[in-house]
């Protein structure tokens, strides 16, 4: 376009035409680019919910609380008690025989080493989850402000997050190349999302669908309510851990707790605005299924619940907001719960 012959400045009057006269040009109103941008920025309450949930789950600072103080002081006392007990044990072993004593010392040392390693791994896992949440926030901000420098830096971090995924090697190389070129911040983030995320998104979707299926099946056939409650809880926990892993998090034990808290917060926040998200379908589906059999109704309900937990987990674990790609809905991940209509929709969503 720049090499085309230079077009001279031009003016076209738009005053009232005298009767019978006609203009020799056509004025086409265009949709306003700035309004479109504004709509883009305002229109996403889901993104705010995600950031809020992440802040509640992963980014909580070390705020003071009496409960925390109680736990830490009790923990300190327990550690002392344990140390004392260990000391006595080793001493009594030495009293019996020196060889036994040395074996005891060795075992204690191994136990302490393993404990330290576990702690380090937990800390690393929490650190990594925190990093993913911060990355999400920074990318959302850079996308919003169309900030080229921030986008470049953060896309670098994002690519580094997936450095050990062979399936994403092509996308990584392309992005590394693109980072040096002149691309607008927002476009760069959109490109990164289109390159990196679809594979991960579909893996997460499959996980959710699998879990929802298993849960509804077990609920429909389990002999006792207790069993399917435990099964649902275990499946939900497993599902959110899997999703976190898919998106590059490494949930440990404490990490899983934080993750669950973030997912819970997200469910609570989005619960209020889920009406658009097929809640009517849920209720109708549950109602119809319950008419056929109470068990079947329970199965459908448990399946939907699991799928919703999975969707929340996707929102809080994903290192970037849904911008270029559409966020999956309940009908996308669990079409079997909604019958043919859901299937048709999800087929449309994935050309």
């Amino acid at each position: 376009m720049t090499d085309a012959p230079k077009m001279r400045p031009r003016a076209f009057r738009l005053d009232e035409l005298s009767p019978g006269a006609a203009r020799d040009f056509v004025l086409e109103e265009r949709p306003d680019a700035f309004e479109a941008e504004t709509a883009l920025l305002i229109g996403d309450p889901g993104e705010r919910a995600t950031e809020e949930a992440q802040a509640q789950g992963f980014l909580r600072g070390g705020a003071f609380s009496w409960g925390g103080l109680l736990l830490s002081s009790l923990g300190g006392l327990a550690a002392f008690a344990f140390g004392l007990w260990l000391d006595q044990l080793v001493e009594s072993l030495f009293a019996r025989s020196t060889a036994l004593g040395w074996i005891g010392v060795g075992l204690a040392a191994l136990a302490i080493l393993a404990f330290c390693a576990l702690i380090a791994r937990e800390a690393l896992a929490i650190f990594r989850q925190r990093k993913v949440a911060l990355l999400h926030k920074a990318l959302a901000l850079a996308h919003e402000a169309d900030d080229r420098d921030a986008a470049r830096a953060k896309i670098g971090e994002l690519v580094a997050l997936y450095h050990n995924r062979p399936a994403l090697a092509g996308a990584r190389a392309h992005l590394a190349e693109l980072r040096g070129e002149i691309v607008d911040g927002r476009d760069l983030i959109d490109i990164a999302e289109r390159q990196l995320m679809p594979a991960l998104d579909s893996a997460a979707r499959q996980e959710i669908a699998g879990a929802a299926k298993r849960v509804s099946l077990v609920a429909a056939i389990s002999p006792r309510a207790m069993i399917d409650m435990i099964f649902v809880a275990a499946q939900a926990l497993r599902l959110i851990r899997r999703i976190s892993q898919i998106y590059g998090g490494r949930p440990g034990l404490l990490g899983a707790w934080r993750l669950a808290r973030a997912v819970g917060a997200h469910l609570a926040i989005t619960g209020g605005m889920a009406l658009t998200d097929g809640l009517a379908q849920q209720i109708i589906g549950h109602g119809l299924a319950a008419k056929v059999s109470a068990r079947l109704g329970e199965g459908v309900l448990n399946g939907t619940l699991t799928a919703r937990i999975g969707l929340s987990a996707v929102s809080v674990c994903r290192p970037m907001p849904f911008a270029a790609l559409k966020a999956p809905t309940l009908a996308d991940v669990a079409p079997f719960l909604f019958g043919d209509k859901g299937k048709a929709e999800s087929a449309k969503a994935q050309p």
Partner: protein
Amino acid sequence: MSALTDLFSEARNSAANVAEVLMRGRGLRLGVTGLSRAGKTVFITALAQHLTTLANVAAEGRKNPLPVFRLAAENRLQAGRLAPQPDDHVARFAFEDHLGALTGPDRHWPQSTRQISELRLRLDFERRAGFRQGPSSFTIDIVDYPGEWLLDLPLLEKSYADWSRETFEASAAAARAPLAADWRGFSVSLDPAGRADEALARQAAELFTAYLRAARAEAYSLSTLPPGRFLMPGDLEGSPALTFAPLPLPEGHAIASGTLAAMMERRYEAYKSHVVKPFFRDHFARLDRQIVLVDALSALNSGPAAMRDLQHALDEVLAAFRVGRGNPLTRFFQPKIDKILIAATKADHLHHLSHDRLEAILRQATARAISRSEFSGAKVDVIALAAVRATREAAVRRGRETLDAIVGTPLAGERLDGEVFDGKTEAAIFPGQLPADPALAFRGDGLALPESEAEVRFLRFRPPVPNFGGDGKPLPAPHIRLDRAFQFLFGDRLS
């Protein structure tokens, strides 16, 4: 002696600053400047109008007009209002008058800045981050001053002889020589070593002022024209401090007392101590954030020589800022400007597809100054901005070609493409294309190019037809990237 007075004035500054910070509470001083016609007044009017009406947006069911501004996006502003300003000896920014001009029945752009003025805004908002969360308030002191005054600041370092020589050299450049011919001719006839003569001094000053004024005229749109008060004398008009002019001093000339040169030198020094220094001390040295508005479009209209002149002026302006990242303690005693926004105003006068190019050109014009400021730790950003958006976008199709045009009402007397506008007719304008390579905008000697040679021609438009809210008060006009400017300038302090 001079070191001692400097130390003394620094101490006084610090004391004044501490007193002010204690009185004010949380807040910042925002400097708004730009060479004349850059749109300072419109920017401040829009800023104040947006921030004072923002809290009602949700209640009135309007769409949030500032989505990038986090305070607005997160709906945390409870109230914004104008408050009495801290400095009683400075004029108040006539917000109501300017708003009236923009939205009155005969809508027109407000009168330009002639002097320094101030406006204080107080925002009540919810803090979300930091040590203390919950309700809080924040004060923004807006200081509006002509950018020409900034060009005076380098004079503080220059002697009369240096300044004379530089001014003569600048006026000999191809772009300026025809404008300066009268004054140069007269100056050459003067004898610096002759007797001091008030009539001669006044005539020289008048011719010199006429030259500056001609260079400032719209057709030329030159920018680097110190001393700034010659163009905006205010209450100093006719005083000796403004009645001097450069003289052609020979190299190594020793100025003897009683001569014309000695009189000129004394007045030059008086200008520095009575005009430049008080401005620096009382206003300029106390700013926390700064926005520099640049009317790149009229310089682009004029031609590459005007662009180079603008580049030089911006370089001088930005060199004047006391930049650097401060810590809370220095912020208390000696504020430094830690963020500078350079904004190309009137971005609504060209199609949004060209905004990136406009930003690139401005970035090129300020590249040196930006790297210098960033080196000292300040953040600098460049955006294309329109505080009030007077046009909308459309495409014009004639035959087989389609042009991306803007539609608005050009001001009376604007002319383009054989049309002369009367200020009532709407028109679709295709202003031409900015060069893809920003360096091209600075290459060449063109100045005050006629339309037939210019590659771009930006017309000025009338303000948009105002909308009124339920209470009969005007609603803020549409804008372009004003929210981004807000977020950059003070969004980080309102988190």
